């Protein structure tokens, strides 16, 4: 299966945005809002139900693809 658990996808996407943020000098990012099309599966991994949610593999939908769901997530900057 090509799809990854939600945590991995979110960490990758947010990590990429965060990398871009670190190059900024004059502007500080206070929040990040993402709306992403996702394909969702529930699978049994190591004895627990895992929420698999990843970006669609293909740009164009076919009848063999799962109906696309949508995830909107807002992150707020916080001090470490």
């Amino acid at each position, binding site marked *: *299966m090509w799809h990854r*658990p*939600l*945590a991995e996808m*979110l*960490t990758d996407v*947010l*990590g990429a945005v*965060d990398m871009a943020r*670190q190059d900024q000098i004059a502007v*500080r990012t206070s*929040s*990040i809002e993402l709306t992403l099309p996702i394909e*969702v*599966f*529930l*699978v*049994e*991994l190591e004895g*627990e*139900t*895992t*929420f*698999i*949610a990843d970006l669609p593999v293909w740009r164009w939908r076919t*009848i*063999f*693809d*799962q*109906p*696309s*769901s*949508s*995830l*909107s*997530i*807002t*992150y*707020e*900057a*916080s*001090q*470490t």
Partner: protein
Amino acid sequence: MSNGNTSVPIEQFIQALQTQLDRAQTAMAIKAENLDLPLTFAVKDLSLELRTHVEVVRSEVRIRPAAPGDHDASTLHLALTTITRPMIKENAKAMNIDPDEPTLKEAVGDQLTDEEQKRLEWAGVHTVSQLRRLAGTGSGKEVERVADLPVDRLRQALARASQPFVTRIEPHLDGESELNASRLLRIRGRNLVRNGAPRVSIGGDPVGVLSATDKEIVIAPQPHQFSGMLSVQTGPDQLAEMMFNLNQNTGARVPENGADNSKATDKETTS
């Protein structure tokens, strides 16, 4: 790994989603710490529009993500937001449950099916005391409607849950002299009192009851009554029995520190 087409209970689905959000949060925190970043990002709000099938299987709501070609799937809108610890406390209903209280399943045994117990949980009835309270307030009809469970079945379950039940018989040592400890026994269990002190007998002979509460009875058996079949009767058809043998723990052989080697043995029956 399954093919992802299996359905799971909705609680399990939400838990799986939460686990992933926690993992993503932990990963971000570790990254910020390792890279010595002054700022990190925390999830504030999440909204999910999930194409799914909602099914009810044996009184359990289950969801199954839509598969390719499932054009008639439902759309489940789920919105999550972060709340602070004080908000959790404000919104969480105190679970006023005695940790020693048996679960509904333990108390009613096979009197109710798993499905019937699940329907009762839907109606907010998780313990015997909650079931008893419902019966006491005359809310049986409401439960019958909400949980789809006939009042007669509820009454039967309540009767089963009200049966006396003995879990343990041991020497009574609390603050007593060794002499007294050698003569007294403590019976632990539940529903041990009903309309007055219970009748206790060992091997068919009555035994003096010194004190009795719902969970504990202290008895003064005769020297020959430290083993045999103990019977506790709280009313007609309300009988609990247990075989025990504490002969080795009587007299000078009772350890001064009250070391626990006195578990009641053999079989336990409730009729």
